[in-house]
């Protein structure tokens, strides 16, 4: 790298401020790259060496300069030399300091382990669904898992001997169980004895309506129980979220809008959603909601049994008999209800093909979900 201006005329050197500035910048850059004593010595030789040192070369040119310039050039050369020497010395000290930290540690060894646990996938999905509805102003309810026949069946338009009870084979308690129930965030109150394990969380909706006037906007998550033998798609316990909206002028179109938006939040913004008539004793008209298969995108695969669609929700307009059971004016108030199985959602979202994995609690499975 030329230290002096290349266009300098022989015999008349142009040692001006610009040239000196350039020289200082070049030196500083070279110094910053120095890591070892050897690098430092090489740099010192390059600038201060007796032969060919850049700064040394300035002195040899003083004699060749016009007499009126000599004094000025000499001053510049001295200043530069002092600056370079100081900088080299400082750097040398820094390198020495680094080397002499005898207690230096290996910062690349692993840090001390701080364990972090993982949320269960059913919790991850439940919390996700709860947060969607909480944002839409729904109240989240917590209620008992043991129930009486009235709240689980009768108030839901399923009197004794109703054939629809076959759809939900029930686990009964050997003897009635007296419980204290929490009522909407307040203190617990004694309640009639429970005789069965709830087959759905709808019972909580009945309890809520018994103590609240419309408008109603709630979801009720929780464990539910049916007398199903265990296989890849069935367990005698599973998790549900049911929702209920009651007010003046709530329509089936509102039901479609709400559940379509919900499924698109939960699965994909462009998810296809289909409503198809079905039957539940506590809603009428009732519908089953399907989404375009998340595995094949609708082309047909094993997951969707080649239909391109997956059943995901049951829903409908609240049956007037349910409103009558809780003392609502069935003529004035309308509403919709829906239920979704959390295991089903988790299986579809995460590609789980065996429901039993959720209850085996194998850490190799659980640790795949977020902390």
């Amino acid at each position, binding site marked *: 790298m030329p230290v002096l201006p290349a266009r300098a005329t022989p015999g008349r050197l142009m040692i001006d401020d610009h040239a000196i500035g350039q020289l200082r910048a070049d030196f500083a850059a070279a110094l910053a790259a120095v890591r070892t004593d050897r690098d430092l010595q090489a740099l010192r030789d390059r600038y201060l060496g007796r032969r060919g040192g850049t700064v040394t070369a300035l002195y040899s040119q003083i004699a060749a300069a016009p007499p009126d310039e000599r004094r000025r050039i000499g001053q510049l050369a001295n200043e530069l030399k002092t600056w370079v020497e100081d900088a080299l010395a400082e750097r040398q000290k820094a390198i020495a300091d680094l080397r002499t930290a005898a207690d230096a540690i290996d910062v690349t060894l692993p840090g001390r382990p701080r364990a972090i646990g993982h949320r269960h996938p059913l919790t991850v999905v439940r919390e996700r669904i709860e947060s969607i509805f909480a944002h839409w102003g729904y109240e989240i309810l917590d209620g008992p898992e043991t129930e009486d026949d009235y709240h689980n069946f009768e108030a839901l338009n399923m009197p004794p001997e109703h054939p629809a009870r076959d759809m939900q084979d029930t686990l009964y308690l050997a003897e009635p169980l007296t419980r204290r129930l929490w009522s909407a965030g307040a203190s617990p109150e004694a309640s009639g004895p429970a005789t069965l394990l709830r087959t759905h969380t709808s019972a909580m909706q009945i309890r809520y309506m018994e103590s609240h006037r419309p408008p109603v906007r709630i979801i009720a998550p929780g464990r539910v129980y049916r007398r199903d033998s265990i296989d890849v798609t069935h367990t005698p316990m599973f998790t549900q979220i049911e929702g209920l909206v009651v007010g003046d002028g709530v329509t089936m179109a509102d039901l479609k809008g709400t559940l379509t938006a919900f499924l698109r939040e939960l699965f994909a913004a462009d998810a296809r959603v289909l409503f198809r008539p079905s039957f539940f004793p506590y809603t009428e*008209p009732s519908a089953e909601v399907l989404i375009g298969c998340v595995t094949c995108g609708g082309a047909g695969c094993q997951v969707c049994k080649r239909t391109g669609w997956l059943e995901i929700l049951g829903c409908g307009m609240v049956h007037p008999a349910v409103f009558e059971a809780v003392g609502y004016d069935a003529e004035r108030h309308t509403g919709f209800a829906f239920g979704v199985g959390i295991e089903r959602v988790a299986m579809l979202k995460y590609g789980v093909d065996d429901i039993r994995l959720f209850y085996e609690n194998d850490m190799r499975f659980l640790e795949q979900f977020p902390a």
Partner: protein
Amino acid sequence: MRVPVSWLAEFTEVAATPAEIGDALTRCGFELASIETVPDQGDGPGDTVLDFEITANRPDCLSIRGMAREVALAFRQPFEPRARRRLTPSPNPISLPVTIEAPALCPRYTAALADVRVGPSPPWLAARLHAAGIRAINNVVDVTNYVLVELGHPIHAFDLHQLEGPELRIRQALAGESITTLDGQLRTLTEGMLVIADRSRPQAVAGVMGGLASEVTLSTRTIAIESAYFAPAAVRRTSKRLELSTEASYRFERGADIEAPLVALARVCELLEEIGAGQVTPGFVDVYPTVRGENRVPLRASRVAQLLGQDVPAPEIERILRALGFALVTEPEASTVAWRVAVPSWRGDVTREIDLIEEIARHHGLDRLPVTFPPLTVSPARLDVRLERDAVVRRVAASTGFTECVTFTFIERSAAEPFADASELVAIANPLSETFAVLRPSLIPGLVESVAHNRRRERKDVRLFETGSRFTRTSGESRAIALAWLGSATGLHWSGTDRPADFYDMSGIVEQLGRALGVGVRLEPASSPAMRDGHAALIHASHARGSALVGLVGQLREDLAAAHGVPPAEHLFVAEIDLDAMAALVDLGEHVEVVPLPRHPSVVRDLSLVVPAGLPAATLRATMLANAPETLVNLVEFARYQGKGVPEGHVSLSFRLTFRSPDRTLTDTEVHRAAEAIVAALAAEHGARLR
């Protein structure tokens, strides 16, 4: 319901492909399960069979006729049942007296007689039954089954000569009666079950299954044909009690058509003669004491719009309902469009306006309804404090390295017993198996099983937790969190600091949960059948609002852990906290009142005491607090030592005491005096001395 397409075609024009029919019916509430091609049994062209799921509210569609009505409407084709023979009253009533003794359970009973030549059915009939999924038996039985499938009405045929009398009495079973049913099973009948009896004994379980004694066999010469209507609840009860479900009981318990018996009887007679199986005796019996009144339901077009969120034009409403057999009369008085709708006898499920609106919605099409959002007319409620509490607890557990589990709420009795008295256990009346016999009194057994599951899979370090309900007779249902810790306390590390987890790791987590929930935690030695002696403690939580016993922490008894497959050398630590008991104390930062920061320095004194080894630290602590001035603001154990310099049977325990006054700087002298007073009290009460 298996529906052969050729059979449908006898009721309506079928221009669509089987796939199109399946699709159209699925869209109006009959989910297609499969499409299957069945070869003809002879040399015919074969048939296509559509298999549909029929919901419990639609027994009328457990028939070809019912499904054909839906298909006709879906494809806008007329529904025209073929003209059928009518049974004509004969001047001479048939020689079979029929008495209904239980008219509430059997509102209608019709019968006819026929002389028969029992033999195989013609191939076409056998093929139809085969396609519908029913095995051919003989021409007489096959005809009854054919009519069952076609019209949905169950028919039974008796061998007349096996009936004592002959006569038929429809009555409740008497105590001690029994019957051998067609499947060869001897069944004991109980009072309340409805039977068809001859003069002396039951010959059929009404609506469920006939008796073997009067079965139609190759030697049968004359038959009595039964076509009746039985009350749904009666058939359902009997079928459940006998654990016997048949094609007949399935239909009767969902509700048959009380106007169908004669139509079905006529169809049986027609078919018997058509296939040459017999000659029907002129005349019939029809015992029908209370004729069904007409069921009329009001319907308003405005209500349809109010429920569906869309106006459905009146002509569309009328088209749909008429095609389904409803008769509509416009209400002239009404200010808006309204009808009185007569419900056909086969639609027992339709009793009120909403049922009609569902019919309209099904066939109008749910996909045609608009997509809107309900207005928010109420301010959102605040989150239930218990849900917030559970979320905090889960977050703390996970952040301290515990992974969340979900285990079954019901467990084996033997697994539950160490955690509650046998009298406290809540048993399930009809468990799937002994593995699920009782509701868990504690979350720990399920958690232990999950720990063991992982340990058996070579996972040595396991930290798991679960939140959920547990059940005892006295406490009912309560919410809890349980934690389990097996293996390393810290995890493998090159520094060699790794050690097995111990009691204090687990109790530290309990204290941390307490801090997260804003309550103080105090432990007290405890013994429990589930815990290793001397290694367990009761957990007391305290707060300004009071204190309560909230749980148990300790080492699980070694043999319990070993029973699940945890190696004997490894210690399993568990804790369980009653979150509902905690909820009364918890105040998740709702009512914080800030205390001014201290303006004066604190003074620290360390006391190393030599005390008897069996003396709990909590006892020393209590004595110190009771004898300290208000300026003692913190007290913490910081060293414990046993060995050289400490007498046998004693332990050295060091406490760090922090003194501070809110309004002045304490002097050395007064702190010194306070410490001396504390030491004196410890010496007097516990024989403690300074080391």
